[in-house]
């Protein structure tokens, strides 16, 4: 298996969005697990075609939002009621009404940080190096190339069989990428 250890996997290109999309469905149906599609734009319906579950990003958003709301509430309570009660116009020291803009803005602020952070965490970014970047063909994905890559660590991966499978589903320019 020395050969498989040095190989990251195989990449195949597809000529248009429709064939790319249907090829992804076939890879999914063939039971591959460690593979992904690469295109310079999001393809409508691709997560389903790849058999991926719904994104987990909303969980991070929710946690951020709850944190923001609680921080906003506690901050106003601590500062204007507990630590330094300040009489202003006979208004109560604390109420959930008057500081609502503060709670509202902090909820949105931390939700936004949660969302961006969640996007990075779920995508395992930052990851500035990836073996795929070594392939000149892969870099063309940024232009108009549409690529499917099957990794060698997939249990079903076999250098010969996977290559012919990719050819069968319409892949061209099949290339082995070194790890």
């Amino acid at each position, binding site marked *: 298996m020395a050969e498989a250890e040095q190989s990251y996997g195989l990449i195949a290109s597809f*000529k*248009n*969005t*429709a064939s790319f*999309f*249907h090829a992804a469905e076939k890879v999914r149906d063939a039971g591959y697990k460690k593979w*992904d*599609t*690469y*295109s*310079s734009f*999001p*393809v*409508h319906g*691709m*997560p389903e075609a*790849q058999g*991926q579950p*719904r*994104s*987990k990003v*909303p969980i991070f*958003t929710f946690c951020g939002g709850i944190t923001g709301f609680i921080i906003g509430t506690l*901050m*106003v309570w601590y*500062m*204007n009621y507990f630590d*330094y009660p*300040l009489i*202003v*116009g006979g208004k109560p020291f604390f109420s959930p009404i008057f500081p609502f*803009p*503060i709670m*509202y*803005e*902090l909820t*949105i*602020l931390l*939700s*936004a940080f949660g*969302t*961006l952070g*969640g*996007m*990075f965490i*779920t*995508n395992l*970014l*930052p*990851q*500035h190096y*990836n073996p*795929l*970047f070594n392939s000149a063909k892969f*870099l*063309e*994905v*940024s*232009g*108009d190339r549409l690529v499917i890559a099957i990794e060698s660590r997939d249990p079903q991966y076999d250098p010969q069989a996977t290559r012919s499978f990719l050819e069968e589903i319409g892949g061209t320019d099949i290339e082995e990428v070194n790890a």
Partner: protein
Amino acid sequence: MAMITENSTNDPLRDALLAKVQPAELVEQPLVTNDRDFNWVTDKICRIVETPTPLWWWVCMAVALMTAAFTGLGLAWLVSTGVGVWGLANPINWGWAIVNFVFWIGIGHAGTLISAVLCLLKQGWRTSINRAAEAMTIFAVVCAGIFPLFHVGRVWFAWWLFPLPNANVIWPQFRSPLEWDVFAVSTYGTVSVLFWYMGMIPDLGVLRDRAVQRLQKGVYEGAGILAQAMDIFRKYFYGIFAMGWRNAGNHWRNYEMAYLILAGLSTPLVLSVHTIVSFDFAAAQLPGWHTTIFPPYFVAGAIFSGFGMVLTLMLPLRALYGLHDLITQRHIDNMCKICLGTGSIVGYAYIMEFFIAWYGANPYESYAFINRAFGQYWWAYLMMFSCNVFTPQLFWFSAVRKNAALVWVMSILINVGMWFERFVITVTSLANDFLPSSWGYYSPTIVDIFTFFGTFGLFSVLFLMFLRFLPLMPIAEVKFVMPAADPHGHHDDGKGGSH
């Protein structure tokens, strides 16, 4: 007859009726014209930052820097002398500074509207203008922030606005709308930057990959060492900020979810920001300020002025960079129509304010409004009314919308009008307040004028930097609305022709 076969059903009556009336087939205007392909889009947008700096950029930058120096001068004079160098005096303690703050913050709103609200409404045409509009938002917030920051008088204590522990062991007073504003504007600025940055990650990846490709191919014969050095810089600069983005389906899945959520968060945010800005006025008891119409009226005005600014910026850019296939007549039409819609809301609000002042039968309120239109500041009211109410009504006519030069002039008039609106609201209400003995007349000083004039330079400097170093349009999003990106279409090549 293709239309009829498409619509044919099992119902013979319906088919017969359709054959009789022959409904017109409405063709949707393509968002990218002239049958362009993916590579053309990538190339067109990337080459703006990859080709040598054009001469006009240097000229504009020089002018912008010189203009920005006026703000620097005005602020240096203010800080070294004291806030008295502005034309503020009792009872008018909110002069140009607050007018300019509201003006700039309002301009920012169109950027968020385009990037967030139109995203939620699935308006495909937003794609080619949203990046530049978001940049405009951020730079407008920067310009806006300067004014209240220096208006506090002793700017080195401005950090007291934030709930940070200080030597006096006191905290901000959260019952004040001004404190709400601190939170609203700083949240708005931060979330706008996050949204802008996240939208840019895939495009930064494209710029990185293109630089790496050129370095690998070594295409620098005759181009000189500088071109190669710039590509090495690009490889690392864009590479670091692209965070290793590699266009994976898995990346896009999480990215699209995050984008949608950020759009969903920005929508209530943008509405809250100008609402809270209007609370600065509406929560006071001054006749002319103390009205419930302020929040919706301010938000509509903000979107109106912001779209005016987007048109002011995008029309010259479209001509300079030859982006006619990406910013089409359809885009201009839509922006003009939004100006028309929001301008009409603003006009309605002006008239409704008068109606309520009369209907409310409060003599002080009535006086405030009659004084606004016919008192000592009648000229400002006239400027506001004619620019904001009459100008956008011309957008009803398609001949006007198709005349780019005329649209550009009108977009500037809209912003002049919106600046005067803020002047009218702020100054006329304060100048003639409760005690006639203390009434006054406000005029700006040269320092006020310098500081405001310079912010246009600051805005231009930031925008020119953006044009030079960052992708002007979201490449991935433009590709996404092209027919060739449709996985269920039947296109054999990467062409983006008619749908």
